[in-house]
């Protein structure tokens, strides 16, 4: 599976990933000048919090959100392993919100669905990785659930120690 990894040294907290996620994924218009005035307000799937760490869905191998969903709206793409919300059937019960250990799933009262990062599964490349001006975000193939490659990239569990 390919996941997004974060280099905390490079993240400047510029929020470019949040902005573009809101435009490309969250908005109907898909265009900056219209998206920023859209109602209900588009919801970005990535959040830049303290400690220079853009939070993305981890697409956990044992995903509590899938288990908690009462009607099978939280699903895993069998091909890519990515976890996503099937919005037409989501009943906005927020079970997934409660069980996510990372606080990734956002309850959207205005959209009446649970909103989370699906790693741009229908796009060639995740938008946040594409727009990150410092290359702090990178797409990497995982082996046994952990990303390969340079050790300075934050791995799942380590990256969250500071929270």
């Amino acid at each position, binding site marked *: 599976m390919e996941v997004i990894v974060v280099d905390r040294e490079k993240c400047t907290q*510029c929020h470019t990933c949040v902005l573009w996620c809101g435009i490309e994924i*969250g908005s109907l218009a898909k265009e*900056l000048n219209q998206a*920023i005035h859209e109602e209900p307000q588009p919801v970005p799937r990535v959040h830049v919090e303290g400690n220079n760490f853009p939070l993305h869905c981890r697409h956990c191998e044992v995903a509590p959100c899938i288990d908690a969903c009462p009607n099978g709206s939280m699903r895993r793409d069998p091909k890519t392993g990515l976890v996503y919300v099937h919005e037409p059937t989501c009943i906005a019960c927020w079970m997934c919100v409660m069980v996510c250990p990372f606080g990734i799933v956002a309850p959207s009262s205005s959209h009446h669905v649970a909103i989370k990062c699906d790693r741009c599964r229908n796009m060639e490349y995740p938008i946040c990785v*594409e*727009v990150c001006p410092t290359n702090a975000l990178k797409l990497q193939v995982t082996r046994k659930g952990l990303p390969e490659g340079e050790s300075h990239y934050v791995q799942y569990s380590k990256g969250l120690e500071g929270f």
Partner: protein
Amino acid sequence: MEFVHKKTADSAVESFLPKAAEQGVALVWDRYEGSLPQCGFCETGLNCRDCLQGPCISHPFRDQNKVGVCGKDKDILGVHSFLRLVLHGAMAYFDQLADFAEGVMSGEISPKDKGGSDKVLKDIQALLSNGTAAVMKEFPKGLVDGWRAKGVSPEGIARDLFKVSQKLDGGTSGVEDTLLWAFKAALSGCVAQVLQGRLKLAVFGDGPPKALEVNLGVLQGGVPTILLCGHFSPILKQGIAEAAKGKNMGVMGLCTDPLVPPHIFPPVTNYGSQEIPIMTGAVDLIVAGDQCVNPSLAGLAKQWNVGLVQTEVLNRGGDLKGSARKIVAQVQKAFDGRRKVTRDIPAIKESALMGFSAKGLDMKKIAQAVKGKKIKGLALLAGCNNVKFTQDLEIVSLARELLKRDVFCVSEGCASISLAKYGLLNPQNRESSCGKGLSDLLSSLGKDLPPVVDLGSCENGAVTEFLLAMGKLPQELPLVACFPEANRTKAVARAAWTVAMGVPTYFWPFLPVTGSPKTTEALGDFCQKTFGAKFNVITEKMEPAEKADLILKNLGRG
């Protein structure tokens, strides 16, 4: 995401792009592509760096971070973003004016019309101290009374610039109030530009429009060549031309006023391709100001072993004439040292007739043609190039559309150079470029009028003088201003005062105010209510024909 577009419509410039790639030379287009995607907060004016508690953003997609640390919300951020640009632009005109006036006052040059020059100098003092420049009396009374009532007419730089600059520091002014302060700064810039034009006329004298050639083909190759780049004192420019006289050397211009009577500095290219002349190898020395000069020129000049003289330095030392003589001696030396450098000059140039003025045009005939509906209206074309668009394509295509549809087009500054490169300032192309009504009007105005009438560089106020000479309030005329490829802050200030004069203005690319619905709306409806014209901020992508449709619709409003 697809960011890349065709880089330039100018084939002379285009021929250098593969060469630059081969040599690993990064040009403006490479740097632009490298900067993509540009910061969306900055692009929409939702950011602020005016103090050290920030930088702040107003986040469009989150419930937190909606307001800056000091409390600026998205609307104040948006209007401040506009104010910052206008203020910077207005000051640029004061900078040019101050340089020139200082040279004249210190006796560096003996003006052709000493009495006239003294009168203008006195007026400049009045503009700087309390805004009571006599030239304001030449503006239509209705217009000036309106400005006074709103408090936006010039009151001296302490209020027009210093006070305006502090609006960015804080205070509780709302969007519309802040916007009026921005227009105040812009209008004082307008008067500064008009006075600079008047001083130029008094010092160097008036003359008929000049025939000249533009584009890279004007470079000669075999002779020492000085390139005057950007805006700096015309007295220095004249000094260089005088010192070079009879010495078999070329003195060319780039993003500078090409006409300082009796001298002509043929424009080698325009803003977007500012780096290319160095790559021809045919430039031996660059004399560069600050305004409109890309910092990248320093690196390129070094790479091509081209001398670089900065005009805006701390310790100027000596007189301008002495500096001019030194520059001319330096270029001869530079040329001798660069004999081995290959000269690669594309044989592309175009003739143009430039430097018209309201005085030299039969304004009555133009007014009659407007009244008799022989032409659809008048368009002012301004602005330079912007790397966000294919160089020259927007302005030239729009001008061609407008000419075909019988719109009388006047242009100024770098916009004129763009149009000149494609023959739109060449009288020979009048019949083929213009609709019948316009063509008839132009030929009745004189036998050698080009399709687009150039009113001179942005170092003089000929466009404002043209508007004043129309004899009516601009808002009563079918008149629009278009900035199809705007770039510098000067263009924003210029567009702002054009709106304040009652001329509906179209501006591309969109200004960094779109994050604030109130500011965007105020630039439209509030300006319409206050000045009788809208400052149109357009975010949609439009083809030149669509733009022309939009402009014609506006011209037909009356």
